[in-house]
C-alpha cells in the first residue's frame, strides 16, 4: 500500500506571545508582550504586536508574524480605500467585520493569526472583538489570545466575570490588571516576557505605556 506523499516542511511557524484587551465604559485597553520567538530561541525582545488600523481601532495579534504582518498591511490598505470612498474613518465594529471576512477569505490556507481587536464603538463605548484563525468572532468585554492566554483568561474571568454581572473596571484599574496578568503569564509561559506594550484608546485619543517583564 502506497502511503500519501507528505511535505517535509511547514509553511507556518509560531512566533509566540500573548495579547489581551479589556473594554471599559468609555475606553479600551489593548496590550501585547514584545517578545518574538521561534522554537526555544528569542528572535527579539522589542517587537510590537499591536497595529493601529483606524482612529479608534487597534489590532493585537499573536501567532505567525509573517502572516500577521501581511494581514495588518491588507487591512490598512482596505481602510485607506474606505476612507477615500466614504470620507471618514472605519468604525471599530465595521473593522471587526472586515477582519472576519478577510480571515475567512483564506479559509483553506489560513492566516496563522490569533487576533484581538479593541477600540471604541460608534457610541464611544469600549469594545473588544476576539477571533479564531479563520474569522469566527464575537464581541466580548475582555479577551486574551496567544501562548499565555490559558494562564491569563482564568484570572480575567475571576476578576471581571465572576463578580456577576460583568464588572467594568475604571481605566486605571484595567491598566493595572493588564500589568498584573502579564507579569503572571511571564512567570510560567516561556514565550511571554521582556516588555508589555499597553495602548489605551479613549475619547481623547490613544495613549501608550510600557511595563517591564521577566527576561528569562
Amino acid at each position, binding site marked *: 500500500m502506497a502511503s500519501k506523499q507528505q511535505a517535509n516542511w511547514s509553511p507556518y511557524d509560531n512566533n509566540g506571545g500573548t495579547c489581551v484587551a479589556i473594554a471599559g465604559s468609555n475606553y479600551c485597553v489593548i496590550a501585547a508582550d514584545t517578545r518574538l520567538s521561534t522554537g526555544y530561541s528569542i528572535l527579539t525582545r522589542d517587537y510590537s504586536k499591536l497595529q493601529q488600523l483606524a482612529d479608534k481601532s487597534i489590532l493585537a495579534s499573536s501567532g505567525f508574524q509573517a502572516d500577521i504582518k501581511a494581514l495588518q*498591511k491588507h487591512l490598512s*490598505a482596505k481602510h*485607506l*480605500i474606505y476612507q*477615500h470612498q466614504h470620507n471618514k474613518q472605519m468604525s471599530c465594529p465595521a473593522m471587526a467585520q472586515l477582519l472576519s471576512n478577510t480571515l475567512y477569505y483564506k479559509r483553506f490556507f489560513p492566516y496563522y493569526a490569533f487576533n484581538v481587536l479593541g477600540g471604541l464603538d460608534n457610541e464611544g463605548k469600549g469594545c473588544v472583538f476576539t477571533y479564531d484563525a479563520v474569522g469566527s468572532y464575537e464581541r466580548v468585554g475582555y479577551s486574551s489570545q496567544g501562548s499565555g492566554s490559558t494562564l491569563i483568561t482564568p484570572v480575567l474571568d475571576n476578576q471581571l466575570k465572576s463578580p456577576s454581572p460583568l464588572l467594568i473596571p475604571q481605566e486605571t484599574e484595567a491598566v493595572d490588571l493588564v500589568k498584573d496578568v502579564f507579569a503572571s503569564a511571564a512567570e510560567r509561559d516561556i514565550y511571554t516576557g521582556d516588555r508589555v506594550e499597553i495602548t489605551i484608546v479613549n475619547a481623547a485619543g490613544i495613549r501608550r505605556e510600557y511595563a517591564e517583564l521577566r527576561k528569562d
Partner: protein
Amino acid sequence: MFRNQYDTDVTTWSPAGRLFQVEYAMEAVKQGSAAIGLRSKTHVVLATVNKSNSELSSHQKKIFKIDDHIGVAIAGLTADGRVLSRYLRSECINYAFTYESPLPVGRLVVQLADKAQVCTQRSWKRPYGVGLLVAGLDESGAHLYYNCPSGNYFEYQAFAIGSRSQAAKTYLERKFESFTNSSREDLIKDALFAIKETLQGEKLTSSICTVAVVGVEEPFHIMDQKTIQELIESLEIKEEEPTDQGEAMEERSPEAAPAPMDI
C-alpha cells in the same frame, strides 16, 4: 475644427497625420470649468472653479486626494476624472503595500499616461475626456504635471486648464519665475488670483472655488472655506493694479496651433 470623414473612429488617421477623436477629447477638457496648479520648491497648490448647474444643486467635485503626497484637479468629463482618480488611488496603495514607501509622482503620471494612450489605439474604446493636473511631492521635490486625453504629459511650474484658462495662463506666465521661492501663503494667493482671472469680472468667493495644498510635511488636503475667504479678502485689499493690463493680453488670439498632440 469641423466634421470630416476621418473623425468617426479613434483608430482612423487623417491624411495630415491627426487622430481627430483624440483632439475632440481634448476639446472636452477645454469645455470644463477652470483648474489651475502652481508649485514652489516645497509646496504645490491646486485651485478649481466650482460652478454648479443651478442654485439647487451641489458643486461638482473637481479636486481629489490620491494619497497623502499626491492630489489631482480635473477639467472635462468629471465622471471620467472620478474613475481615473480611483485608478490612481489604487496604484498608490498597491505600490505602498509592496515597497512600504510613497509612489513617486513621476511614475504615477507615466502609468496614467499609458492608460490614456491605450484608449487612443483601441477601436472599441474612446479616449478619456478629462485633463488632470497632478500635484505631488516625492524625494525629488515638488511636482506639477498635466496629463491629457492623448496620453501625453508634461511637467509644469504652473498651468491652467479648462474654460477661460488662457486668462489664468497669462497671469501665470507673468509671475511664474517667482514661484520657485514663493512662500506657501503667496503661492495660494497667486492661485486665487489666477482663478479670479478666469472669472472675468465675476466676484470671487470661497463658495465658487476650491483650493488644495500639498507640501513638505503637509499632507495633501483641501483647504476649508473660511481660510480661503480670509485669503480672498486680503487679496482684495492689496489689489491696486488696474485690470486693463490683464485685458490687453487676453485680446491676443491663439496662433494657428500645431496639432494639439504635438505640444
